């Protein structure tokens, strides 16, 4: 394949010569150390360097070919040669000696360099400056390739440099002679192959980045490399292609050429561009197809998704955005946490950076998500809906629409009635001129827009409107779904955990955020829906446990209802009383660590803290309940409740009677004379008749901010109704909650400087923790007889042991003595023998 494409490329190169790089280094520089490479990496010095070396190089070159050289230069060169003993010789040899194959060319396009070298050789005789430049260009190329290689190997961490150079030498050889290539391939181990491919990729990639127009074709090579069997190579290929595409994708969308356009004869320049674009698009498509197919394989899954996310993030305007979006949106529901987070981030960035794609991608993404929700029957990961929270809409998007419609008839009326006389005097001439001016202005605007890549307000609005409708469609679908499920559940009488509505929480959050954009027509239905979801039922005796939503979700429903109502300028004619009742009861259902405390604080903030003046009875009921609530829950919840309570007392000065103990039950008590803490309806609780005794206990709360808040509230009793106490904590319940939550506290740096001072010194001898009964036990624990007995037994044991030891020693001794007898006998025999021998000897 390499051969074929290579030859093809040869032709190509003849037609369009790639622009030569600025000549920057002389031959020796190829071998110069990394530092130098770094140095000339800073392109500032190009000119200077070139200037510096150019003369010599040219002279040397020319001189060598011409055969005569100036004396000085000869000396100089000799000195140079001597200095760099071996390498320059090789280099010179390469230049001088003919075998072309030996040239250290390092790219896939080995032929290219070969050609150029040849050309250079042909043109040597002419000695034209151009050839020198070219030669220099080729050398520069080499240098750059080295540079690339270095950079790549750095990025691929811990690569063996030796291997790199090895494969680098082998690669071009293989390219030059296919038979050699095959031989080499057989010899190469898998690892070497991998290294080789890596190097190839690096080279190709760098070449692409250097000059995309000239090297656009190597995209094909890269693609083919990423078809490799080796998974690592494929991954590398994908990543390097990604890097290349990220860099070369143009800032416009490439349009398919019509046949007419194709038929028209065009200039060379245009042809070139067309060819470039065509190749780019084709490769991009192939790449995407590859990604999409690889996504299905588990080991490529993260890589493929990462590539798609990165592409979508950088080029949301480019062709094939739709398929990219489709797979990214699909992966919003991935079970892999990392992948899901990545996709979410990408979608978010699309929503936020609308300038990149004029909002078209936004609407597409929202629609896709909507379809996705529909297809999966709302059983998705919450993250897939949560991305909507990053959407941004213009403030006037809805108003304009309605206003325009409203204004038109009005205007017309006015036109007809009042302004008609005024209108008449305006002459036709003027009118036409005005029209002309406006027309011209419009044209200019359109041109400007086309150039500056922005949308006109109208287009923009229509896109946003579409996005919005898709968004709310999704939200309403989720709500409806939840309703139907909870209904069926309650019929089946199954208490299920809150996890059955994974999308509800982000959905409610989104509704709360975009509540000002909801169409008035939907309002009534929405509120009714929320009311149902929040667990409200007309029958008071119904057990609230039938509702399958969690407490947090129900509170969120209340919050959303209020937000919707409030953001529509409270124009909505709905009774939100039921939500208050709901909250009144939900407060008691709240459980720390199971439900989200922030939601509770938010509910207090939205429903009670932000509201206008409350109904007195209702306010009193809430005040009492919140005070009781603060007694049983942690300090963060308590402070949120107290902040709300204080606010209520400030707004409803009549309720301050509750701070005082009017013997006789308080004059304001109506209907219900006695407080009933368990009442489900705030109006029937009779809270006005109660006294806020809780606060006196809350003053003893361990948390200093809670206790000071309690005393602050208590101090209101002595003030007259219009006065308010000096506020100590000027925050809303949500902030107060967050300030005191344990997470916040733990994330703060640990407090230091613990100094302890003594209140009064205690005598050291007193016992503080041990009970006296126990201490009594300690003494008189041993009686005499027992002691004697035990000591005796202890003694007996000790004696037994020592006796045992002694006896054993004795026994051993005796036994060994007996054993010695054998020894003795042996010796005796020996002695006897010896004696006999001696005797014999003596005899002899």
């Amino acid at each position: 394949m390499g051969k074929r494409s290579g030859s093809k490329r040869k032709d190509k190169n003849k037609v369009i010569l790639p622009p030569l790089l600025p000549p920057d280094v002389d031959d020796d520089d190829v071998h110069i150390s990394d530092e130098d490479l770094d140095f000339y990496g800073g392109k500032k010095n190009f000119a200077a360097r070139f200037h510096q070396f150019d003369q010599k190089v040219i002279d040397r070159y020319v001189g060598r070919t011409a055969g005569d050289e100036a004396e000085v230069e000869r000396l100089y060169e000799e000195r140079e040669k001597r200095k760099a003993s071996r390498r320059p010789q090789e280099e010179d040899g390469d230049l001088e000696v003919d075998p072309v194959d030996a040239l250290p060319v390092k790219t896939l396009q080995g032929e290219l360099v070969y050609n150029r070298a040849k050309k250079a050789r042909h043109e040597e005789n002419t000695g034209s400056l151009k050839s020198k430049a070219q030669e220099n260009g080729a050398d520069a190329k080499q240098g750059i390739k080295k540079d690339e290689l270095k950079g790549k190997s750095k990025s691929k961490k811990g690569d063996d440099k030796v291997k790199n150079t090895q494969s680098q030498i082998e690669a071009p050889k293989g390219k030059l002679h296919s038979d050699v290539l095959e031989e080499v391939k057989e010899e190469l181990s898998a690892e070497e192959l991998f290294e080789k491919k890596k190097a190839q990729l690096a080279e190709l990639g760098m070449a692409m980045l250097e000059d995309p127009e000239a090297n656009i074709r190597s995209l094909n090579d890269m693609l083919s490399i990423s078809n490799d069997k080796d998974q690592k190579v494929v991954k590398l290929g994908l990543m390097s292609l990604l890097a290349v595409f990220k860099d070369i994708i143009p800032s416009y969308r490439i349009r398919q050429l019509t046949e007419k356009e194709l038929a028209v004869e065009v200039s060379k320049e245009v042809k070139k561009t067309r060819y470039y674009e065509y190749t780019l698009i084709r490769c991009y498509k192939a790449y995407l197809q590859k990604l999409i197919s690889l996504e299905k394989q588990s080991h490529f899954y993260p890589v493929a998704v990462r590539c798609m996310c990165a592409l979508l993030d950088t080029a949301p305007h480019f062709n094939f955005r739709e398929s990219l979006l489709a797979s990214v949106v699909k992966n919003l529901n991935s079970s892999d946490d990392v992948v899901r987070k990545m996709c979410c981030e990408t979608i978010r960035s699309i929503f936020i950076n609308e300038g990149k794609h004029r909002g078209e991608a936004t609407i597409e993404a929202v629609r896709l998500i909507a379809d996705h929700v529909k297809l999966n029957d709302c059983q998705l990961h919450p993250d897939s809906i949560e991305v909507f929270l990053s959407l941004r809409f213009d403030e006037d998007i809805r108003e304009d629409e309605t206003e325009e419609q409203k204004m038109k008839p009005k205007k017309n009326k006015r036109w007809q009635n009042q302004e008609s006389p005024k209108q008449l005097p305006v002459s036709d001439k003027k009118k036409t001129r005005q029209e002309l001016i406006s027309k011209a202005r419009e044209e200019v605007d359109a041109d400007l827009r086309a150039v500056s890549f922005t949308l006109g307000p109208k287009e923009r609005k229509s896109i946003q409107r579409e996005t919005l409708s898709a968004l709310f469609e999704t939200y309403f679908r989720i709500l409806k779904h939840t309703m139907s499920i909870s209904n069926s559940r309650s019929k089946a009488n199954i208490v299920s955990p809150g996890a059955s509505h994974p999308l509800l929480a982000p959905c409610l959050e989104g509704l709360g955020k975009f509540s000002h954009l909801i169409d008035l027509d939907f309002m009534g239905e929405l509120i009714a829906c929320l009311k149902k979801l929040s667990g409200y039922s007309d029958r008071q005796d119904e057990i609230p446990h039938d509702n399958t939503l969690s407490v947090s979700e129900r509170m969120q429903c209340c919050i959303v209802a209020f937000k919707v109502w409030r953001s529509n300028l409270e124009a909505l004619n709905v009774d939100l009383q039921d939500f208050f009742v709901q909250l009144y009861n939900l407060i008691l259902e709240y459980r720390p660590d199971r439900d989200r405390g922030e939601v509770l604080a938010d509910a207090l903030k939205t429903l009670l803290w932000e509201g206008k003046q409350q109904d007195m009875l209702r306010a009193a009921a809430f005040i009492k309940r919140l005070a009781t609530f603060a007694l049983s829950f942690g300090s963060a919840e308590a402070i949120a409740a107290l902040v709300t309570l204080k606010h209520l007392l400030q707004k409803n000065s009549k309720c301050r009677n509750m701070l005082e103990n009017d013997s006789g039950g308080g004059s304001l008590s109506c209907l219900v004379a006695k407080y009933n803490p368990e009442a489900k309806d705030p109006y029937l609780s009779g809270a006005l008749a109660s006294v806020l005794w809780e606060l006196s206990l809350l003053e003893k709360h361990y948390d200093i901010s809670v206790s000071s808040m309690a005393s602050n509230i208590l101090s209101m009793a002595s003030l007259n109704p219009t006065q308010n106490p000096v506020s100590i904590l000027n925050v809303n319940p949500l902030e107060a909650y967050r300030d005191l939550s344990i997470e916040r506290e733990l994330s703060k740096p640990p407090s230091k400087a613990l100094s302890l001072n003594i209140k009064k010194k205690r005598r050291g001898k007193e016992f503080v923790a041990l009970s006296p009964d126990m201490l009594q036990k300690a003494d008189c624990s041993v009686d005499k007889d027992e002691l004697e007995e035990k000591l005796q037994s202890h003694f007996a044991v000790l004696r037994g042991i020592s006796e045992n030891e002694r006896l054993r020693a004795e026994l051993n001794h005796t036994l060994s003595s007996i054993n010695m007898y054998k020894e003795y006998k042996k010796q005796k025999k020996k002695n006897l023998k010896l004696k006999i021998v001696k005797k014999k000897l003596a005899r002899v």
Partner: protein
Amino acid sequence: MAKKLGKKARKFARKNLQSAAKRNRKIRNQINYRRPRRGGSAAREDGDEDVPQRVDDATMATNDATDALINGLEFSEDDAEIDAGLSDSDGYLSEDPGCPYYSDSEDGDTVKDCIMQDGLDRQNDDINIDIKKQKKKLKKLLDKDPEFANFLEKWQTELKNYRSKEDSDEDGMDSMDDDDVSNDGNSPNTKMLTSKTISEWCLLVSKEPKSPALRNLLNAFRDACQYGVHSDSPSMQRFQSTRVFYQIITFVLTESDNIFRALLEISDDANKGQIMNLRNSKKWQTVDPLLKSYLRNSLELLSQLTDNKILAFVLTRLRASAVLFSAYPSTSSRLLKILFRLWASGNQSLSLSAFLMIREVASLLPDSLGLCLTKAYNTYLAGTKLVNDRNTKHIDFLMNCLVELYSLDVQKSCERVVTSMVQLNSILRQASKTREKEDLRKIDNWQYINCVNLWVRFICCNYKDYNLNPLFSQVLQVIRGVAHLFPGSRYLPLRLKLAQMLNELSACSQMFFPIPSLLFDCLEIREVSQKEETQKTKVNFSSMLKVPKNLLKSRYFQEECVLSAIQVLSAHFAQWSYHVSFPEIATIPLMLLKRLHEQTTIEVLHRPIKRLIDQVNENKEFIERKREVVSFSPNDKASVDSFLQEEKNSGNASFKRFYSSIAENHQAKGKMVKPIPKTQHYRQLLISKGVTPLCGCREKNYQVLM
């Protein structure tokens, strides 16, 4: 030679350590650890080294495995002080030849009559028979061949030479007690001790403490204490009857404190300073060797004994002379080492007497207080690694002991408490930041919880007398953080424990803590698995932090949940039962209890829940009645505080009674329920009983002996 050098080095190290500034200790400590230590457990050794860093850098990531947690919480020890053992050898005292020795005729019989029917004696008999057989054989051989006798003799002398050489080689490595014997210039007395002799000596000594018989007696005591240590030493032969042994030990232990005090002319409440002053006087010079010998040999006895009761007895006797240890730092550190071993042992009376001795030493010898605190804390941590049904009481006891010890000098011990708290806090922070399993496991274990509990109790005991506010808030943060990090019903036992701690804190500080917020999970109804479990596993929360998954739906677990919650809740209610806002405190829990009562399917629970509801209702109505007639408002602090104070102090309100009955019930079931400590009450009792219980005993015993 090598040994002497070692001794010098140890002495040097000790001196240095005492004089060194505290902050330098840690660094030097690490150097000290390079030296091989005797006795110290290897596991602790490597842990100690990372402690200093951790203390210095509280925010440092603590990535150790959970096993290493103990080391993370431990204090670094100056073990070198302990290491330097007995330096000088003076076990034997030269005797006055004037003292009489009597021979006893009946001694032979007493040996016989106390033969124990244990395996060892029987074995001894068997060996005896064997020996006789073999000897006969040998005799036969000898008879047969007279020349063999010569050969044997030669061989035996060879063997002896060889052995003695080997002994001297080993000597270097042996413990120091060995050379006490061999290095003594004057060879110890080997005269037989008889019952009569001892009685006579005792009489002499008790008449006149200065009498020379004291030396003899102490020598006998020394031999008795070392009895059985070296089976081949001649002193073994001095005891032929158990009676003598008993006589010596009891007499010396009971009387020596009096005798020495008489000799030194110091009073019962002498402190360290007095002793130190005495050291230069002439009186001291004469008593010094005697005292040294006595103390050292008592320690020897302590390390020899195995029976808990005798140990407790010895400790009680020795406690009287605790102050005398101050003259010999090395001995006292060795004493402490033994004491801590005994303290950690499971036996209650023994560990109590060991602790009392520790406390005595710590309070009398200010130098050793630091060491005591560190050692005690580390011992406690090591001992509380595992908690099961059996040792909960013991751990509770250890905790109380530790609180006692740390309360001796709050100023000094606070440093350590703060260090430990900072460690606990940083572990918590780390866990809440990462929420990783490994970090969470560092909290979800007994060492952490016991440690928190320890400091809670420490604060409770000292809150009134000292300003411990910074510590208080740290402990609170840790408790809140732990409760927050472990939600869910699996961790209910842990949360109940935290609630108990909060109750304790609340009782001592009179602050209000919202206890119910930790208990809601207990009071909510869960599904009970329908299938009846075959094995009826009893769930005991006191030895559990996390409920195993298989028990989560079991009936027993839920029973235990509700009962424990009732207990903790009623403690909370009992504390505020006279507060003017009691009805409001009870409102929400009462609603939950009622709901639970209606819905629970477990029959056993109906009655206790109902009882609590009734009691709370009764008290609620009582308070409501009372406060209807008062005229003050909630913002009138003084009036609120004085509300129903009289009734409260009279102390027989129905709810208090109810609570104590519940607490008793739980205790009867073997639960670890600690009643709120009433320090005042304890102190009064202690002054009369706890501190000077020894005088009476002493006299009684003496009379008996005579």
